């Protein structure tokens, strides 16, 4: 059983750790740099996001990555700990299309980032690596093939790195509601509070394409582009074979081929369509199946009417479950919106990501429909029949996949970033609060310490010092004693 195996591995690793720490603390020092930083989340019910649940387990992070998840882990002496007994641990949430206020802050520099320009200079990213830009940018759909060793964390930069406000109040609000990674314009940015290094994770993994019944010429145009690009790729492959025997053979010309379409076909980016009407959705599904790519469909309100077709096309859908669109009275077939949309799409094999109706933060008093209520929105997908696991994935793994960063975030697995939420209950329950948020192994939010929510059902004080052993035993409260004390006080007053 997978869980058992993990325990054994956990134990083994734990032993190894213990052995390495048996030596005096000097042994911990790595030659030139600072000591390793450890953080352990102890005793919570860990919902890894993979379907696995480990109850009362411990998660150990080293230098921001998940080092180990298991039971009875031996922790390093200087390990910072968070007591998660009686609480749950979830992966940090990934919010698509989030307001740029999150990372630009309240005192933004005044440079509005609408169209952002990615770094053209390969040298700035890789230095003297010998690889071309194309070889370095990961293909979004095959996480298995991609290797991260080449892209150092702080080598990858977008414009958001230089304008990142690490003290943004909006960021703190988002962290307090479970969001740890956000899409800002076309970049994926980590909400690294207090830190400006390595905040951008990816960029331009989604390329906008247009397919609409109101623009038939556009549809024909797009289809033609795909056809030409596909032909070119086929020609190119043939040439690659042929040129081995005939060196003189000229390479097929790239002229007239749309580079973006090539990127889509070669998996360097994903085509994102904004479409809601059933006919448009069918058209996109067929286009995708014909030219063999997996479309991302934003909106997809009537997706439930053509779910099978979308599933066959391997589509992704970015939906808001509560979106309402009334069925026109003149139609006789299924049309309009349905609360069951997300569930039906999922069952047909579409990978569904959920976004709220308002991807900004409402400060005016209307709660439950903005970015801070991302878990509630996923809850509405469950209302429509989606299963709990897919609902959690819709706000973690699937958006991570769309941003090309699911090798780093979205689940709690060994080797991934330690982005975790510690909640006082079921994340998707309306009463639950995030008590602690950890981003890359650092505690960046404590509900009790921040002014925003500390007054709501404050946590009873059970402070654990780092390194102190966490005991499962809780001293029983002597109820009678308390009552007697009260009675005594009253009698004094007389």
């Amino acid at each position, binding site marked *: 059983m997978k869980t058992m195996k993990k325990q054994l591995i956990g134990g083994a690793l734990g032993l190894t750790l213990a052995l390495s720490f048996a030596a005096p603390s000097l042994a911990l020092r790595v030659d030139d740099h600072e000591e390793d930083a450890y953080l352990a989340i102890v005793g919570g019910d860990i919902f890894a996001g993979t379907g696995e649940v480990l109850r009362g387990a411990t998660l150990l992070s080293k230098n921001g990555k998940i080092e180990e998840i298991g039971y009875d882990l031996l922790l390093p002496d200087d390990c910072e700990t968070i007591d998660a007994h009686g609480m749950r641990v979830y992966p940090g949430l990934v919010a698509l299309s989030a307001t740029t206020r999150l990372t630009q802050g309240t005192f933004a520099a005044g440079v509005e980032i609408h169209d952002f320009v990615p770094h053209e200079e390969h040298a700035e990213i890789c230095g003297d690596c010998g690889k071309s830009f194309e070889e370095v940018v990961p293909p979004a759909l095959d996480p298995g093939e991609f290797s991260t060793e080449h892209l150092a964390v702080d080598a990858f930069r977008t414009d958001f790195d230089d304008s990142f406000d690490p003290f943004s109040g909006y960021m703190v609000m988002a962290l307090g509601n479970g969001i740890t990674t956000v899409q800002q314009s076309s970049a994926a940015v980590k909400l690294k509070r207090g830190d400006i290094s390595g905040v951008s994770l990816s960029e331009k993994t989604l390329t906008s394409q247009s397919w609409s019944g109101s623009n038939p010429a556009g549809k024909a145009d797009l289809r033609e582009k795909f056809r030409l690009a596909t032909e070119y790729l086929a020609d190119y492959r043939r040439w690659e074979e042929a040129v081995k025997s005939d060196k003189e053979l000229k390479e097929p010309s790239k002229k007239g081929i749309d580079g973006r379409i090539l990127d889509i076909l070669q998996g360097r980016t994903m085509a994102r369509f904004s479409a809601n009407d059933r006919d448009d959705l069918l058209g996109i599904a067929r286009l995708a199946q014909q030219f063999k790519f997996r479309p991302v469909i934003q909106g997809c309100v009537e997706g439930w009417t053509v779910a099978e077709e979308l599933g066959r096309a391997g589509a992704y859908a970015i939906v808001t479950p509560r979106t309402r669109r*009334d069925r026109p009275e003149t139609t006789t077939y299924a049309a309009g919106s*349905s609360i069951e949309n997300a569930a039906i799409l999922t069952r047909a094999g579409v990978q569904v990501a959920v976004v709220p109706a308002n991807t900004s933060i409402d400060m005016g*008093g*209307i709660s439950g429909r903005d970015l801070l*209520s991302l878990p509630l929105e996923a809850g509405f997908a469950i209302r429509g029949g989606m299963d709990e696991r897919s609902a959690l994935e819709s706000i973690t793994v699937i958006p991570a996949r769309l941003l090309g960063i699911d090798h780093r975030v979205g689940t709690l697995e060994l080797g991934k970033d330690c982005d975790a939420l510690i909640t006082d209950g079921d994340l998707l329950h309306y*009463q639950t609060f995030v008590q602690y948020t950890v981003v890359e192994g650092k505690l960046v939010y404590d509900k009790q310490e921040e*002014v925003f929510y500390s007054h709501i059902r404050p946590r009873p004080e059970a402070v654990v010092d780092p390194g102190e052993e966490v005991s499962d035993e809780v001293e029983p409260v002597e109820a009678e004693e308390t009552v007697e004390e009260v009675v005594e006080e009253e009698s004094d007053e007389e």
Partner: protein
Amino acid sequence: MVALTSLTLLVAGTLVPGVSDDAYADVRPIEIHNAPVATPSLAIRCGRVLTMNAGDTILDPGMLLVENGDITYVGAPIEVPAGFESIELDQAWVTPGFIDLHSHIQAGGWGDTNDMVMPTNAEFSTRPTIVAGNPNVRRACAAGVTTIFGIPGSGTSISGFGVLLKTKTESTYEGAVLADPGGMKVAQTHNPERRSGDMGATRAGLGWLLEEINDRAAEARDLGTFDPALANLTRVHAGELPVLIHCAGNEGVANTVRMWKGRYDTHCAVSHGSFDGWYAADYVASMGVPVNHGPRTFNFNLGMKEGRFVGTSAAYVEAGVPLFSLNTDAPVIPQEELFLQGSVSVHHGADAYTMLKALTIHPARTFGIEDRVGSLEVGKDADLVIWTGDPLDPRTRAEVVVIDGEVQYQRTHDGQWF
């Protein structure tokens, strides 16, 4: 879904009120009942029944019997009597249908909400704008909202009188109305200023507009004089009709209570009470005025600049305001998401059961219709909802909705509307 017969229309026709000198002999609002229609008797048995009665009775499991539109039994499960249709859902919860005292969905959309002729239009009513069984109403019903107070907007200081309606999915005005007029709608601040003409750009002007007309109505009540334009307003001053007042902000809420309760002693309720209105909660509680809260349910930095998320529902309840209830101001928030107002209120610190009361018995008592709706008790209208779980949880859905003893919505039969 029962079609109304011509018999019902005839009956309705004979009940049209006429004008008489003795205009205030009638102490109850105008009511029009549908003629008793043969509806199947229902026996509903579910895992949990939240009666929302005075004793806060919760039955685990529980049973209800429904005959001729009313509840005839609430209690522990018993044997299903002969001739009753049985609905048995072991894991399901049953609650009374939800009541929203601040809704604009009766006309079917955004139109017909505000008629801004004079700064005060006490002679208006939403009756002519009602489109019974419109899509918003149907969806609201499928989400457990069974009674709404369909009111005009807040473009003027007194926008008119609203109608208390049941959200029957296929109906007419006669079939759906609970009380007409149901009550009066006032907008004290935070909207009328934007549109008032010569007088009413500030609170001084708005205050005068209201006092002037109210004083005239009070005088008409005392002297027994009759003015068609003031007829309903005078009934408010006679305590026969409730008045719902849209107001917000610290001083806005206090002002409203001071005028409508302190000065005129009407059967009034604060509606909205948004932003930092909760700062006046103690005063409102001391004056015994109920608060109908929403669509905003937290206060962050509008008003007294808290800089933190203050759960205003919890704040009002803690201060002791009586009969705290919730609204959506639909379509500001979609009517079907009335329950969510309860969910987010709980999230920001309120007690879950109290918020359920805020959706059922509290709004019923605020408007004096608790003899008909608001709780599952013998003799009351059979307005009830069968849920798959906690109704405040967005993951829960409504399975069956019954209004006046008739099944209005059944998910397995009608598909999931929400």
